[in-house]
């Protein structure tokens, strides 16, 4: 019984494919538009997925706990002597004072991220450089920049450049190294320098820092240590690495959801089109169904025929749409949607996205593209199946 059931459906599928090929223009048009809709939806999903993965990768370098002082709800600098008050907490491996902030370059409208670290911490940091070396202790003005910052500063082969301090006096710097492009999403706009140089650029007082980066020995204890720090320094904001990860996922998820809502209009239009196309049977199609019925096809056979036609169109469109979306994200950095998901900064990091497509992503895209299409074609399929053969021929 099972063999004859499978054989019957294989025969119907065979007929459905030949029937689709006979009406190439109509079905090809539907498949093309459907592929486009799937391409848009899948691009969003793949891009979100890749950005989440990239964020996860670069957050490996982020400190386990970041401490910032708040005053009147705003972040203010704190003295690096506060490190001493945390000395009694077990499980803290290292505390690094940092000065960081944004420097607006009026010349080209770019915002650089300035990061100042103690020289010995810079040497220990797991920073990968494409060439050059890290800033050294007793050599003021040495910096590491990314290749996009170098391009933005129009340095060319020159090593030295200047930035304006807040009082419009100039601070000069020498480039000693260039970050590797792999961490471009994190370091794309970064200028890394010694702590003292960063204080000088931002006009911070001696011994003042913007935050403290705490690393812990056992990551499972991060939340407990964060709670202890909060008890000792109640005026600080404490950010843990896992919180930042979850925030990234939430933000990407929300932005991608927002984008998908906008794309739903495209999906809705397509579903209406599919319904309309499936409903409007030509005289020739009606004759075909009438002949099939004379040959002994039942209503459920014609419904099965229509089902296989819809599945064939959906499969071709799904594969085409997914392939295009993959190419768009992997080779063109998802350029259509990157501004929505990443923001509009002038110095946007150049991304090297590698969409790791999982079964869950495919099922997700399938659910909100193919299922509405299948749902839209059932009633027209049934209407065509119940045509009275004797009224047509």
């Amino acid at each position: 019984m099972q063999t004859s059931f499978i054989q019957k459906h294989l025969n119907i599928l065979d007929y459905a494919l030949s029937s689709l090929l006979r009406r190439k223009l109509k079905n090809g048009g539907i498949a093309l538009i459907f592929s486009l809709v799937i391409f848009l939806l899948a691009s969003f999903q793949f891009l979100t997925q890749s950005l989440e993965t990239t964020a996860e990768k670069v957050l490996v370098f982020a400190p386990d706990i970041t401490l910032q002082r708040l005053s009147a709800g705003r972040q203010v600098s704190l003295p690096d002597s506060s490190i001493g008050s945390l000395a009694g907490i077990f499980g803290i491996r290292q505390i690094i004072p940092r000065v960081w902030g944004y420097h607006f370059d009026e010349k080209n409208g770019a915002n650089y991220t300035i990061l100042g670290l103690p020289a010995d911490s810079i040497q220990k940091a797991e920073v990968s450089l494409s060439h050059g070396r890290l800033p050294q202790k007793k050599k003021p003005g040495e910096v590491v920049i990314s290749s996009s910052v170098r391009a933005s500063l129009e340095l060319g082969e020159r090593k030295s450049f200047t930035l304006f301090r807040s009082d419009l006096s100039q601070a000069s710097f020498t480039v000693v190294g260039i970050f590797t492009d792999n961490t471009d999403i994190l370091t794309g706009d970064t200028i890394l320098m010694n702590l003292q140089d960063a204080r000088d650029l931002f006009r911070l007082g001696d011994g003042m820092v913007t935050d403290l980066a705490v690393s812990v020995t056992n990551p499972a204890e991060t939340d407990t240590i964060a709670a202890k720090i909060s008890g000792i320094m109640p005026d600080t904001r404490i950010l843990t690495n896992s919180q930042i990860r979850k925030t990234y996922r939430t933000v990407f998820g929300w932005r991608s959801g927002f984008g998908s809502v906008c794309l739903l209009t495209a999906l809705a239009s397509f579903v209406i089109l599919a319904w309309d196309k499936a409903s409007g049977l030509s005289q020739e199609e009606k004759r075909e169904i009438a002949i099939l019925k004379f040959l002994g096809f039942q209503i459920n056979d014609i419904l099965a025929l229509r089902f296989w036609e819809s599945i064939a169109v959906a499969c071709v469109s799904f594969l085409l749409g997914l392939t295009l979306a993959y190419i768009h994200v992997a080779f063109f950095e998802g350029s259509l949607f990157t501004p929505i998901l990443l923001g509009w900064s002038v110095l946007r990091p150049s991304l090297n996205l590698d969409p790791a497509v999982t079964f869950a992503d495919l099922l997700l895209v399938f659910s909100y593209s193919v299922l509405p299409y299948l749902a839209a074609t059932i009633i027209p399929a049934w209407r065509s199946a119940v045509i009275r053969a004797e009224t047509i021929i």
Partner: protein
Amino acid sequence: MLFNTWGLALSIISLCALFLIATASRTAIRVLRFWDPNSDSSTQIELESEIWLSSTLVMYGLGFQIISLLLFVLAADHFSGMIIGAMCATGSFLANSYGIPVLLIKIAGVFIYGIWIILHQLDIQSEHYPLIKIKYWYLVAILPYLLLEIILQTRYLAELSPEIITSCCAVFFGGKEQLGQNLLGTYSTTGLMAGFYSVAAVLCGLCLYQLSAKKLSAPINIGAGLTWILFFILSLVVITVVVSSYIYAMPYHHCPFCILKAEYHGLGYPIFLTLFLAVFSGISHIIAGFCNNLPGLAAPVRKLQTLSARCALAMLCIFVLLSSYHFWAYILFT
């Protein structure tokens, strides 16, 4: 999370399913009001063709329901990356009071739609349509069930917020009494496994008996149906409390959802698929048994029962082997 891509996809599937079932219910109401097999009026002829539409719609509804259940679990796993304290799908389901009820409703939904299709398949094989009224009353009842599922799912998604702190399936620090369980309480492993194998053995015997005997009496039929339901619940408990931690090789990790992940070779998919198929086939056999005496259904019922008993037996054996493998491999070889 309502406007997260996953939330949107779940809502879209639910709306599609609602559209399908509402359209099918319209036919159901017309059939319940106007069906008259002795008439050859145009309404009756229209209704006879409309029953094909309604059955197709419910079949699609079943397909959508299965995809929706799978997507719901995968979505919960994805949400765990945003919710504080959640490490996998369990944490997301426990993040508010709607998660677990929606999951249970979706699981039951697969059986509810499936049973309708079994009734329909039997019904159309008799020229008298003996089950037509029952199956359309049943179909009308599916609509409020689906509405309830959509309302609860929407509330679950709307109230799921990244700020909520939840706890997950592995609780590392706790009293001696709570050794790591969160989704379900503590049970004796020996007692559970003994119960699990006993019920499985009873059901195997039942399937063999069903294959050899012509007909079961009504009380045995009801007893067999209840045993299948008991086995389904017991299997879910055994997978969560005992089997899962042997698959993960982590004594404190008791989660029925992480076994779906690629890290564990997606072992959860064949385990759950065979469990659902075994229980569904077993229940189909029982349901068909009640239709045996209806006009024109004796032969179709016999055919369906043979098929379902074979399928239930095969799936049950595969399920027990798959779910027991890691447990026995650990007990015997380590």
